[in-house]
């Protein structure tokens, strides 16, 4: 008995009971489709986040206060160790294109009888360069405004839309933030939503000294964004910043740094870890449904073996060996699983495509998720098909022939 014969016998077994076979396959189809959809949604999210992070420019370093372990803790800003002078010192290092300190606070902005709550970002004119963000009207504030802690503000488009009547040019207008009267000197060109969905245009930029002295009464900065001249020099600049700040903050020997330097690469890595975890979580949930589908296969195969006891007895009487019978049922369950698996892959890919088309979520189907599902369904076929097949093969032909339903 050769393999092709074996395969045909198994196929005939499947064809002989179409409804039952397709219901059995349904479990595998749903399981595999779920795995494909979940992985593609997870991979899509991950791909979008990494695309956005890398589009922000890869030669950026972020210096945050506190011994941060990652971007989240580093940004907490509970430790106030970075100062404007640190930023100036960093800007003086070699291979550094610019160092821009930031300090922000939330505040309500009032123009005539309109109010709007937004984020007030204290920064320096270098911000415009580092973020590559031009003004659409007016101009950015200058270094002298930072020197003198002037009451000048550059508005994001969302703030303008919410405070000023349509068609008015806000440049030159006076707005009040925390009872301080600011003169609007420029409006930033619209930039759109950032990676985590927040509106980047919903912000007001003012000289950092104004926030420090006039609004918060502090001397520290929340973060310093550093742009290096080339991407290759990032590691070098990161080390120089660390050496410089340890010296400036008098940290010697094994004492822990009171600041941390992060590159976008490490932010990217952290984000990828997070989305990777999410993908694994989603895929595991989907894998459970695949497992349930596999148990369904075993269940049906067991019923099928009992139902076909007489057939098995007859096959044995006309010369089928135990391994012939074992192979017949094993091939049957593997074929069920593989056909179910491929149908599931197609269904899953179609649903993933529909999700990105109609719900706007990015999905990304990877070869690896397809191979994983195909391999997994074949393994399920063998694993859950083996016991029923073994049961069939070990039947006694005399008993089996005498079996009555």
């Amino acid at each position, binding site marked *: 008995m050769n393999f092709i014969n074996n395969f045909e016998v198994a196929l005939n077994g499947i064809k002989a009971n179409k409804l039952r076979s397709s219901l059995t396959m349904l479990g595998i189809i749903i399981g595999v489709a779920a795995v494909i959809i979940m992985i593609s949604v997870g991979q899509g999210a991950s791909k979008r986040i990494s695309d956005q992070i890398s589009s922000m420019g890869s030669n950026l370093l972020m210096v945050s206060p506190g011994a941060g372990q990652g971007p989240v803790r580093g940004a907490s800003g509970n430790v106030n160790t970075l100062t404007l002078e640190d930023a100036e010192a960093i800007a003086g290092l070699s291979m550094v294109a610019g160092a821009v300190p930031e300090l922000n606070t939330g505040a309500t902005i009032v123009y005539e009888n309109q109010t709007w709550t937004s984020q007030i970002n204290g920064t320096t004119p270098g911000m415009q360069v580092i973020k590559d963000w031009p003004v659409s009207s007016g101009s950015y504030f200058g270094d002298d405004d930072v020197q003198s802690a002037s009451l000048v503000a550059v508005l994001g488009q969302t703030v303008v839309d919410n405070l000023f009547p349509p068609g008015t040019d806000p440049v030159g207008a006076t707005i009040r933030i925390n009872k301080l009267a600011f003169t609007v000197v420029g409006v930033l060109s619209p930039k759109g939503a950032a990676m985590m969905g927040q509106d980047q245009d919903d912000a007001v930029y003012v000289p950092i000294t104004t926030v420090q002295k006039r609004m918060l009464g502090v001397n520290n900065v929340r973060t310093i964004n550093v742009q290096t001249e080339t991407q290759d020099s990032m590691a070098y600049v990161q080390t120089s910043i660390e050496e410089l700040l340890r010296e400036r903050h008098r940290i010697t020997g094994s004492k822990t740094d009171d600041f941390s330097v992060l590159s976008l690469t490490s932010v990217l890595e952290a984000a990828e870890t997070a989305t990777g975890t999410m993908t694994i979580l989603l895929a595991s949930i989907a894998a459970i449904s695949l497992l349930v589908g596999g148990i369904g296969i075993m269940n049906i195969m067991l019923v099928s073996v009992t139902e076909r006891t007489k*057939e098995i*007895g*007859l*096959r044995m*009487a006309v010369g089928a060996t135990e391994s012939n019978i074992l192979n017949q049922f094993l091939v049957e369950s593997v074929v069920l699983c593989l056909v179910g698996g491929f149908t599931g892959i197609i269904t899953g890919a179609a649903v993933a495509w529909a999700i990105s088309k109609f719900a706007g979520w990015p999905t990304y189907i990877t070869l690896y998720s397809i191979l994983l599902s195909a391999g997994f369904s074949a393994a399920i076929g063998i694993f859950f098909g083996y016991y029923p097949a073994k049961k069939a093969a070990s039947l006694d032909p005399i008993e089996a022939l005498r079996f009555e339903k």
Partner: protein
Amino acid sequence: MSGKTVILLENVKKIYQLGETRVFALKGINLTIREGEMVAVMGSSGSGKSTLLNIMGCLDRPTAGIYYLDGENVSQLAKSRLARIRNKRIGFVFQGFNLLGRTTVLANVQLPLIYAGAGKKEMAERAKEALAWVGLSDYLEHYPSQMSGGQQQRVAIARALVNNPSLILADEPTGSLDSKTSIEIMAVIQRLYLEKGITVIIVTHEREISQYCRRLIKLKDGRITEDTPVMNPRNAAEDLAAMPDEGEGQI
């Protein structure tokens, strides 16, 4: 009756262990059956005739004693070897036909050839030949459920002979058929040994059926109590010709 020995049983015993009790199904059978014989095995239920048939059919192994099939000692062969022997040398005909329901007549007859590893073309040719021999050439693509009992049993006979066995074992082959159809089936079985020289062993409890055989073996309590030639054996084809022309048969 001459020719070489097909079956030689030497003091064959079969003991079943049912929990605490031992059941002696066969208590020492000595039997020789030569090529081209047509033997009826009779006995009441519990006489051991099914056990004897199972052992002769290589479906079961004797507890003690030796079984030579075509001169080969097959009494203690491994299960896979026995499956080979059943495939190559033995054909089975059952009371309940045992055809695969959702499979065509042609595919049913091909079944033993699948396990013999025959090529596709060869399988189809030989199955058609066997079906033509039992007179069912027009039913190749029919399903068993579309056929009468007599026709189904003829499909089963075609399946039994498709692999050119030296021995055909029939377990109550007419047990599910009416008397006229029974004679039709006996006519086909008689042709097996008359035309093809195949040794046929029929287990039956009907005296009329045993009349179509040439030798009668009676079993009781696991022993052979009688082994005689059949006096005035009948010819099924002649009996059939003498019967009024009606019913389903169309050989």
